[in-house]
C-alpha cells in the first residue's frame, strides 16, 4: 500500500489526541473560578492589565462585552491601516519597501496602473483584522519586516484571541452566568496562556526543522549560471507558527506553505498541519468542560469531525483519479499545481483541513484541482462550521444548534430549549439573522461580480471554471478563510473593496449576534432535563444537527455550486476531447502563487 495514505490519518489523530488535554487546560486558565483569578500564573494577566489601568475584572453584560470587542477591533483597524500606509518611514525595513499602496495594480486587460491604490490596504487590513488573511499582495515583495511583525503577525495573534474571548463570553451566557466576563481579561489570558506559549513551541520546532528566523535582509545568491538573485527570508518561523495556530493562514511568502522556507521537511509539515486544527478542536473540548456537559461537546466535535472526514476523502478521491480530461492519456495522479514534494493525498488533506478551519494557508493550487476536488474546500467554507475559525467556528455552529434544537425540540412535543433554557422568538430571530449573513454575502457578491465586467473580465477561464473562481473568492472572504482559488486577477480596486466589505460583514455580525443570544439566554430560567427533554448529547441529536447543517448548506448554495464546480465537472465528462484541464492565471509561476497573491 502507498505509504502516503498514512498522512490523512496522522493529520487527524494527532491533533485530536492533543486537543483533549489542551481543551481542559484552556478551560482552567481562561475561565478560572473567582478564587483563582489573579493568583498564581494568572497574576500575569493582572500585571499586564495593570499597565492599561484595568487590573480588576469588570462584570460585563453582552452589550458591554460586544462594545469592548468592537472598540478594540476598530483601534486595530485604524492603527494597521496607518502602519501599512507609512511602512517606508517605519523601522525594520532593510529592503526599503515603499507603502503597500504604492505598487499600483494590473487591470483585467493586463494594463498596469501606476497610481497609488489605497484599496489594497483597505482589503489587507480588513483581511487581517477579521482573522481571514486573504492576501491580495505578496508578503515578501511588498511588506517590510515591521509590517510583517507589527501588523500582520500582531493581528495574527490578537484576532484569534478576540474570537476566543467572545466564545468564552458566549459559553458563560449559555451556562447561565449573567456576568459574561471581562473582554480585556479574556483577551490577555488567551494571548498569554494559549497563543504565545503554543506559538513559541511551534516556532522552535519549525526553526529546528530549518525554517529561517532572521532579521537580515534578503540573501544574495549566485546561481550556477552566475546570475545574482535575491532570496527573500526573514523572521519566518515565528510568523508561520502563529499563522497556523490562530486559523490565520496568511503566508510570510506569497506561495504560502508550499514555499520551502515556510515548510521545508516532512516534520515541519506534520507540525504545521497539527497546528492548523489544534486550537479550533481544543475550543470544543473547552466548551464541554465549561458547561459541564462533555457529552454535548463531544457530539458537536464528532459532527465536525465527520464532515471533515467526508470532505477529506472526497477531495483525496478526486485528486487521485486521473480526471476526465486526461483519461487514457496520462498515468498516475495529476500533479499540475501541486507541490511535488507533497503529492495529491497530502495536498487534498491539507486543502480540506485548511478550509474546514478558517485557516486558509495553501499548499496546492486549487484552481488546478479536479472540479470535485475543488468543490470540497468551497463546500467546507460555505458550511463554515467545521471547527472553522478560533471562536467564530463554534459560534457559527451554535447558530445551527439553535435552529436544530428549535425544530427537533418541537418534534418531541415541547417548546424548544437549549441547555435548559427556552429558545424563543428573540433568540430565533438573532440566530437566523446570523445564519442569513453568510449565504447573503456569498450569493449577492458573486451575482454582482459574475453579471458585470467586474468579475467576468478578471477571470482566467471562461464558463463554469471562471464562475468557480469568482464564487470561491467570495466564499473565502465571507467565511473569513482567506484561501484563494487563484486564476483571478483580484488585486483591483473593485475586488479589494468588494471583498473587503464582505470580510467585515462576514466577521462582526456573526460574533455580536451570538453574544446577544447568550446574553438573553443567561437571563432565562433554567429547567433541568427530564425524560421528555430533547437530549443534546446523543447520536440522534448529532445526526439531526449534521443533517440540518448539510441541508441548509445545500439549499443555500446548490444553485451557485451547480453553475460552478458541478457544471465544470459534468462538462469535462461530457467533453473529454479538450485535454487541457484549466489554466492557472500565471502558469509556471509557482513562486508567486500565494495564498491569494498576484
Amino acid at each position: 500500500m502507498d505509504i502516503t495514505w498514512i498522512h490523512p490519518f496522522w493529520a487527524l489523530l494527532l491533533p485530536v489526541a492533543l486537543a483533549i488535554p489542551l481543551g481542559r487546560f484552556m478551560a482552567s486558565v481562561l475561565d478560572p473560578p473567582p478564587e483563582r483569578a489573579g493568583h498564581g500564573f494568572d497574576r500575569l494577566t493582572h500585571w499586564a492589565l495593570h499597565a492599561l489601568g484595568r487590573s480588576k475584572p469588570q462584570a460585563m453584560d453582552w452589550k458591554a462585552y460586544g462594545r469592548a470587542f468592537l472598540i478594540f477591533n476598530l483601534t486595530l483597524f485604524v492603527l494597521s491601516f496607518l502602519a501599512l500606509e507609512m511602512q517606508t518611514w517605519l523601522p525594520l525595513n532593510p529592503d526599503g519597501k515603499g507603502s503597500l499602496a504604492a505598487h499600483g495594480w494590473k487591470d483585467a486587460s493586463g494594463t498596469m496602473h501606476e497610481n497609488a491604490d489605497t484599496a489594497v490596504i483597505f482589503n489587507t487590513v480588513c483581511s487581517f483584522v477579521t482573522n481571514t488573511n486573504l492576501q491580495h499582495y505578496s508578503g515578501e515583495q511588498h511588506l517590510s519586516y515591521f509590517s510583517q511583525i507589527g501588523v500582520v503577525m500582531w493581528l495574527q495573534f490578537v484576532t484569534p484571541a478576540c474570537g476566543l474571548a467572545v466564545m468564552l463570553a458566549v459559553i458563560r451566557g449559555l451556562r447561565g452566568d449573567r456576568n459574561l466576563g471581562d473582554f480585556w481579561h479574556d483577551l490577555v489570558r488567551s494571548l498569554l496562556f494559549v497563543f504565545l506559549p503554543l506559538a513559541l513551541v511551534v516556532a522552535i520546532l519549525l526553526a529546528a526543522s530549518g525554517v529561517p528566523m532572521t532579521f537580515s535582509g534578503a540573501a544574495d545568491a549566485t546561481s550556477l549560471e552566475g546570475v545574482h538573485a535575491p532570496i527573500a527570508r526573514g523572521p519566518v518561523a515565528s510568523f508561520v507558527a502563529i499563522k497556523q495556530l490562530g486559523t490565520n493562514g496568511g503566508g510570510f511568502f506569497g506561495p504560502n506553505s508550499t514555499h520551502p522556507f515556510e515548510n521545508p521537511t516532512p516534520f515541519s509539515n506534520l507540525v504545521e498541519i497539527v497546528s492548523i486544527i489544534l486550537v479550533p478542536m481544543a475550543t470544543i473540548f473547552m466548551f464541554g468542560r465549561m458547561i459541564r456537559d462533555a457529552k454535548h461537546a463531544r457530539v458537536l466535535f464528532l459532527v465536525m469531525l465527520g464532515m471533515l472526514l467526508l470532505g477529506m476523502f472526497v477531495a483525496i478521491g478526486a485528486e487521485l483519479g486521473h480526471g476526465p480530461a486526461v483519461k487514457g492519456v496520462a498515468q498516475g495522479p495529476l500533479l499540475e499545481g501541486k507541490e511535488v514534494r507533497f503529492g495529491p493525498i497530502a495536498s487534498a488533506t491539507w486543502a480540506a483541513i485548511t478550509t474546514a478551519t478558517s485557516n486558509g494557508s495553501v499548499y496546492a493550487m486549487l484552481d488546478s484541482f479536479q472540479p470535485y476536488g475543488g468543490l470540497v474546500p468551497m463546500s467546507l467554507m460555505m458550511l463554515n462550521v467545521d471547527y472553522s475559525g478560533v471562536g467564530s467556528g463554534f459560534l457559527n455552529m451554535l447558530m445551527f444548534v439553535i435552529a436544530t434544537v428549535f425544530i427537533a425540540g418541537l418534534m418531541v412535543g415541547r417548546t424548544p430549549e437549549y441547555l435548559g433554557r427556552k429558545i424563543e422568538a428573540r433568540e430565533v430571530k438573532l440566530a437566523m439573522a446570523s445564519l442569513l449573513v453568510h449565504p447573503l454575502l456569498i450569493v449577492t457578491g458573486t451575482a454582482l461580480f459574475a453579471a458585470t465586467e467586474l468579475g467576468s473580465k478578471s477571470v482566467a477561464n471562461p464558463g463554469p471554471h471562471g464562475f468557480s473562481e469568482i464564487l470561491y473568492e467570495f466564499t473565502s472572504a465571507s467565511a473569513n478563510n482567506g484561501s484563494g482559488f487563484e486564476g483571478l486577477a483580484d488585486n483591483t480596486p473593485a475586488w479589494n473593496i468588494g471583498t473587503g466589505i464582505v470580510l467585515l460583514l462576514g466577521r462582526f455580525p456573526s460574533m455580536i449576534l451570538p453574544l446577544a443570544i447568550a446574553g438573553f439566554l443567561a437571563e432565562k430560567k433554567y429547567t433541568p432535563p427530564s425524560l421528555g427533554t430533547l437530549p443534546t448529547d446523543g447520536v440522534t441529536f448529532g445526526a439531526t444537527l449534521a443533517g440540518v447543517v448539510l441541508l441548509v448548506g445545500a439549499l443555500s448554495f446548490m444553485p451557485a455550486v451547480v453553475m460552478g464546480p458541478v457544471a465544470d465537472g459534468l462538462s469535462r465528462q461530457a467533453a473529454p476531447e479538450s485535454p487541457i484541464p484549466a489554466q492557472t492565471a500565471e502558469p509556471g509561476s509557482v513562486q508567486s502563487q500565494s495564498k491569494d497573491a498576484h
Partner: protein
Amino acid sequence: MGIATLEPMPDVEKLKLNRRSSRHLRLFEPGLVKQAILRSIVMLDPRIQARNPVMFLVEGGALLTLMVVIESIATGADLGLILYQIALAFLLVLTVLFANFAEALAEARGKAQAKSLRDTRRLTTASRLGDDGEIELVPSNELKSGDRVIVEAGAIIPADGEIIEGAASVDESAVTGESAPVIREAGGDRSGVTGGTRVLSDRIIIEITAEPGASFLDRMIALVEGARRQKTPNEIALAIILAAFSIVFLIVTASLYPMARFFDVTLDVPTLVALLVCLIPTTIGGLLAAIGIAGMDRALQANLVAKSGKAVEVAGDVDTLLLDKTGTITLGNRRATRFTPMPGVDEHELARLAALASLADLTPEGKSVLELARRDFAVDSNAPDGSQFIEFSAQTRSSGVNLPGGLSIRKGAPDTLAKAALAAGHEIPENYQPIVDAIARDGSTPLAVSRDGQIVGVVTLEDILKPGIQERFLRLKRMGLRVVMVTGDNPLTARSIADRAGVDDFIAQATPEAKLAYIRSEQAGGKLVAMMGDGTNDAPALAQADLGVAMNSGTQAAKEASNMVDLDSDPTKLIEVVEIGKQLLMTRGALTTFSIANDLAKYFAVIPAMFVEFAPLSSLRALDVMGLASRGGHQSAILSAVIFNAVIIPLLIPIAIKGVAYRPVGASALLRRNLLFYGLGGVVAPFLGIKLIDWIVDPILSVLGLA
C-alpha cells in the same frame, strides 16, 4: 322593560346530539368543506395574506408571473411559452388557495364546535331578582354580571353563574354531550353553572358572573375564529424561521438571474418564480395556522375550554402534574373493609356500635361502614326511638349517636378520640396506637370507635385505586412528567397510596397554602407545573400554576384563576391536556421538517430543467436523477415540481388537523421516529411524487406539442 321576541325553548335532546356530533366531526365534512372553499377565495385578499409572509410571497410571485404572461402575449412570444407561463400562474394561485383552504377548514371545524356550544345560548327568559325581592322577567341577553336570577326545575340556566342559594341536579348534556345529570349546590366547590344547561330538580338562585358576550365559551369561540386569533409565542418563533428561510431562497433565486448572465444566459422569470415557490416552505407556511387552530379544536373536542392558544402550548411543556388523590388516583370514596376490636371487645359488638354511630352519616364512608356491618356481621341496626345524632364537626372531628339509655357512641379521628378518652379518665389500650399506625401505613384510614368515651376498636377505611391508574402514570413518567399526589390524608397514608399508585411525590395534609408553596418550589427549580382545582381556596394555586385547569362545576374564582376550564369536570383530564399540547408542538415540528426536506428533490427537478437549454450549462442535464421530461421538454419537470408543491398541502391537511400521534417513548426515540417519517420521508417523498406527476404531465405536454 321591552320584551324581546323569545325563541322557543331549545330542545335539550337535540342540543346534546349536536354537541356530540360536533365532537366527532368527519375530517372533510361536506358542509364544512363548502364553507372552507368559499372562504379560501375570500382569503386571496392580499391584506389577509400579509399575515403569512410565506404565502404572501407566493401570491406576489403569481402576480409577477401574470405580468410576464401579459408581456409575452403583447410581444407575441411563442405560444408554447405563453401557455407554460399561464399554467405556472394558475398553479401558484392554486398553491395559495390550498393553503387558504387548510386554514379555512380548521377554522370551520372550530366554528362548528363553537356553534354547537353557542346554540345553547338561546335567548330565554330569566327571572331576575330585584334588590327588593321582586321578580322581573328579562331576556337572558340583558343579564349583567352580579344580577341574581331564580331558576326553577325544568328551566334553562340563562347565563354562566354561581349558585348562591339551594342545590339542584342539572342536565349539562347540551354543553358536554354527556347524559348523566350532575349535582350543583351553593356554598361548596360545585357551585358553578353554565348558561344553556337545564335544572332538572329543585330551585336555585344564581348570581350571574359573566357579562353578556364575555363568558368562557365566547372567548373560546373568538380563539378559533381566525380574525381575532392571536399567534402564540412558539408560532411566532417558528414563523421567524420560515421567514428567514424564505429570505434565503429569495436571495438565492433572485441572484440566479445575474449569475446566469456570466454565461450569457437569460433565465425565464416565471421559471425563477416557480423555483422560489418550490423552495420556500409553503407546506408548513400554508398549514401553520391550521395546525394552531386544530390544536384548539382538539382541546374543545375533549371538552376543554382554553382561554388562550398559549395555554394549549404550555400544556406540552408541563413537567409536574399536581393531581388530587380523590377522584383522580383513587375511586372517589373510601370504603370500610375491616373491624379491629380492642381487647375484651367482641368483633360483632364493635360492628354493631360502628353501625349505630354511622346511621345518620350520609357520607359514602359512613354508608360503607353500615354496609360492611350488615353484610359481614348481620347487624340489625335500627336506631332506637329517641336517639340523638351528633353531626360531624371540624372541631370535634367525630360524629356519633346518644342512645336513649344514656349510651354515647362516637366514631372519628383516632387521635381525637384518644384524647377524649384520656380526658374522660379512661385508659388507652396498649395495642391501640400500633393498630392505628399499621392501618395508616397500609394507605388506609383508621377510624376509631368509642363507647361512653372508652375506645372499643378501629374501623379500616380503604382507598381503592382507580383501575388502570398505574399504567397511566407509567405513561406519564415515560413522557418525562413528574406526578404529585395531593391529599388531605396524613403522611403515612399518603405515602402508602403514593407507592401503590406509582406517583413520584405527594403532598399530605394538603392545605391550599401547602399546594401553593409546593408549586412555587417546583417553579423555582425551573419546572412548569399544571394542576386542576375547583374550590375558591384553590384559586391562588391555580393562578400560580403554569397551567391551571378549573372544573366547570367549580367556583367562579377557580375558573377565573385558571387557563382552561374542563366542561366535564373530570379530574383525569389533566393528562389529556398534556398530550394535546405535545401533539400540537410535534405537528408543527414534523411538518416543518417535512417541508424543508422536500426542497432537495425540487432542486434536482428544477435546476437541470432550467439550464438544460443553454449550451454552456447544458451538461447539468446529468443532475436530472429522476429522469424527468423525457418527452415533453424541460417545462414538464418544472410544472411537476410546482404541482407537487401545491398538492402536498391538501394531502397533509389530515395530519395538520388530526395531529401527529404522540407516543410516550421518551424524547430520543420520539425524535428518531419523527425524523425518520418526516425528515427522511420528506427527502424521499417528493422524488417519487414529482416523478409520478411528470409521468402524467410529460406526455400531455408532448401531445400538445409544447415541447
